[in-house]
Each structure stands twice: as structure tokens, then as C-alpha cells.
């Protein structure tokens, strides 16, 4: 058994909130640079260059990449040989978010009641926490601040088994078409396939945490990722939705077994400022 004080968890999350908001992921940064070799639209190129310049400036001056510093999605993989002491995980996570968003001058975008009051909680809590118990004696912490524009155009669709890969393609392409400029393209498209109605959305979010240069380990899904990327970039939406060849930088698919009667599909968009950071305690 290894004892970990939840204070350490809070401190890690505080640091990761700031780090992820100031520093564009290197996989996304490099994909943007490479996209200049492909993009032919004049305005599209201007926009990609702005995005690159913004990432460099945000890093150099330690400023938030985007004013929308998001609601914080947190993935915790907690080793089953770990004993957590000093308080509750949930309180520690939210303490980390509270401190990170205060100290980092990050925008607080969370409202307390979704439908009626909608009053800003003032400290960007609570975070959306997903946790899994895994073998081992460490905790893997991953943080993703997620903006509203890209969440609002995300989709869950319960397909039928007979719809197959063609049905999945239709859902993803329709989601990208409907999203237009709103999720701040070039986007990263996270796709969840399988599981259940509730878990497929999480698969799509989990897909966005994965390095965008890494293809799905199952070759059939890796091919589907590449085909979908080609199809998306044929739509012509382009950077900022103002037309061009680069609408998406990558499609990441995550899958899970599902009921024999079902084929759940979820599409979660990551904007051009896709942010995440992780560490191990």
C-alpha cells in the first residue's frame, strides 16, 4: 500500500489547469504547422498562422490560449494499491481547480444551476470527474479544460447494428457539417463507438485526450479514422469556417463492446485550442 495525501492531488490539478491553459498541446501545434503545407485558401492560411502565433505568444507570456478556459474535465486512474488520506478526492480536485483558476487568471465559466439560476460559481468548480480503479500504486491525473463552443455542437446518436461503419460515417460527417464554424476549426474530432448511451459520450471525450498522431490500435478503426479525416476535409469548411482544405487535424476513435441490439456513436469536438495536460502521482 502506498499512502498519497489528497493535498498532492489538489496541487497537481492546480498546476495542470494552468499549464494546459497556457500551453497548446505539442501534437496539435505541430499538426497546425504541417497543415500550412496543405491549406491553399488565402484566408485559411492567415487564420492558421494566427493560431500558431497565438500559441507561441500564450506560451511566452503565460496567458490563456483562449478566453474560454473551459469547464475542467478530469480523468483519474487510481491504482488499487493506493490509500488516499487527508480528505476526499472530490474536494481535493475542486480545490485544485479553484486555486488554479484563481492563480492562473483563468476565466471562470461554470454556472451553478443549469436551467434556472445560472449564477457563475466564481471559481470554475465543480469539475467533471471520471475515475477508474486500475492495478498499481500510482495515480494518473489528466486534465482537459473544455470550451463551450466545441461542446455545444457535440452529438450522441444511437445507431442500429445494421447501420455499420457507413452509418457511423454519416453521423460524424453530419455533425461536422452542422457544427460549421462554431467549434473553432481546424478541429480534432473525438468519436466514441459502442458502450451505452451514457458511456459513449465519455469514449468520445477520452479520444480527445489521445495524441492526435496516434492511430487506433485496431487497424480497421485506424482506417476509419483516416477515411473520416479525408471526408471531413473535403467538406470545405476550413479554418474558422471561412473555407479551405483543413477543417480537421485528426479523427480519434475510441471503442467499447456494446449490447447486441445497439450501436451507440458519439462525436465530441476539440477546438483548434485543444488543451490537456497530465501527470503521475
Amino acid at each position: 500500500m502506498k499512502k498519497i495525501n489528497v493535498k498532492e492531488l489538489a496541487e497537481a490539478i492546480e498546476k495542470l489547469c494552468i499549464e494546459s491553459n497556457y500551453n497548446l498541446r505539442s501534437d496539435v501545434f505541430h499538426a497546425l504547422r504541417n497543415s500550412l503545407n496543405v491549406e491553399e485558401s488565402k484566408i485559411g492560411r492567415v487564420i492558421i498562422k494566427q493560431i500558431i502565433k497565438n500559441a507561441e505568444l500564450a506560451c511566452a507570456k503565460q496567458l490563456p490560449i483562449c478566453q474560454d478556459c473551459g469547464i475542467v474535465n478530469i480523468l483519474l486512474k487510481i491504482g488499487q494499491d493506493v490509500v488516499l488520506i487527508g480528505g476526499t478526492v472530490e474536494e481535493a480536485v475542486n480545490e485544485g481547480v479553484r486555486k488554479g483558476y484563481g492563480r492562473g487568471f483563468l476565466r471562470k465559466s461554470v454556472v451553478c444551476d443549469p436551467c434556472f439560476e445560472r449564477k457563475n460559481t466564481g471559481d470554475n468548480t465543480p469539475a467533471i470527474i471520471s475515475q477508474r480503479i486500475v492495478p498499481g500504486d500510482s495515480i494518473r491525473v489528466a486534465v482537459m479544460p473544455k470550451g463551450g463552443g466545441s461542446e455545444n455542437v457535440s452529438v450522441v446518436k444511437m445507431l442500429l447494428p445494421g447501420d455499420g461503419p457507413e452509418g457511423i460515417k454519416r453521423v460524424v460527417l453530419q455533425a461536422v457539417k452542422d457544427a460549421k464554424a462554431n467549434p473553432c476549426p481546424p478541429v480534432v474530432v473525438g468519436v466514441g463507438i459502442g458502450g451505452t448511451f451514457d458511456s459513449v459520450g465519455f469514449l468520445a471525450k477520452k479520444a480527445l485526450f489521445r495524441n492526435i498522431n496516434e492511430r487506433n490500435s485496431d487497424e480497421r478503426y485506424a482506417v476509419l479514422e483516416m477515411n473520416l479525416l479525408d471526408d471531413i476535409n473535403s467538406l470545405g469548411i476550413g479554418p474558422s469556417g471561412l473555407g479551405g482544405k483543413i477543417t480537421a487535424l485528426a479523427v480519434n476513435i475510441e471503442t467499447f463492446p456494446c449490447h447486441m441490439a445497439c450501436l451507440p456513436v458519439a462525436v465530441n469536438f476539440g477546438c483548434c485550442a485543444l488543451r490537456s495536460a497530465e501527470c503521475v502521482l
Partner: protein
Amino acid sequence: MIKIDTPLDDGKIIKLHAGDEVIIGGVVYTARDKAHKRFIETLRKGDKLPFDIAGQIIFYAGPAPAKPGEVIGSIGPTTSSRMDSFALELLEHGLKGMIGKGPRSKEVKEAMVEHKAVYFTATGGVAALLSQYVKRAKIVAYEDLGPEAVYELEIEDFPVVVAVDCRGNDFYVESSKIWSHE
């Protein structure tokens, strides 16, 4: 590159065409969902808005907090379509320009033609960069809304693209026709 200064008038607006790259100088006002709701409530009560909207530009944005020594925190456009239902009444009261991101409704575009207004898009996700074009910032209304308060910003060489011009031409529609290979 076209340079324009606020406030706007018909003469300036007529010269702008969908797809033009423009840099804006002068004063603009930020407002998001909640501020718009209050604007409309204010107008329907017959009261005055917190600033004279005639000829002005509203920037759909809520900035990050300013770090010590900075004029403003990172600032960039939010999704404009959320403000579509509010924009109609504001255009009737003299609003001449909007800065945001994403397409507008048919109704907004028709009202823009009727009242000779322009809709600009600024790049989403480049808010650290855009903050550098803000030279002065102060809250002029609804401070209780936090990041959704109304800021008066003085901007210089602020880069945008004309997304919808006063003739109703929509660059989102025009450009997707050119680039789509479906």
C-alpha cells in the same frame, strides 16, 4: 486590408464586402448572452441602454481576467448564433456592427440588410493574440455578471473578416461553395 474606425455609418459599411479582411480601430462593447437579455429587458421597459448603441459595434466576448500589468486578459469571439434572437431589436435601435464567430440566422441577415449593418468574424481560439490589440478596457455595465459584464474596449488594428455584409452576402456560404468537394 481595409482599415475602419468606429463608430460606423452607412458610408463606411457600404464599402465592406463579404470576405474582406479588415482591421478595426476605436471603441467597441462586449456583450454575451446574459448582457443581451438585460439589454432587451431594458429596451422593452422603455429605458436607456448602458451605452448609446447608435453606430456601435458589439463584440460577442467575455474576457479572461487581466494579469497585473495587462490591459485585459485573453479575449476572443464566442458563438454568435446564441445572440441571434437578441440582435434583431438591437439592430432596430441603431447597432451597426457585430464581431463574433459562426453563421447568423436568416432573420438577422435580413435585418442587417434592412438597417445596413455588418457582421465581422474574428478568429476563435486566438484570444491571447487578440488581447494585444486592446489598448484600454473598462467595465461599463453589469459588473455582477463577472466575465459576462459589458466592457468598453478601445481597440487598434483589431483583425477581422467580413462574414456578412450589408447586402446580405454571407462569406460562410460563398466560401464553402468554393472549397467543398463533396
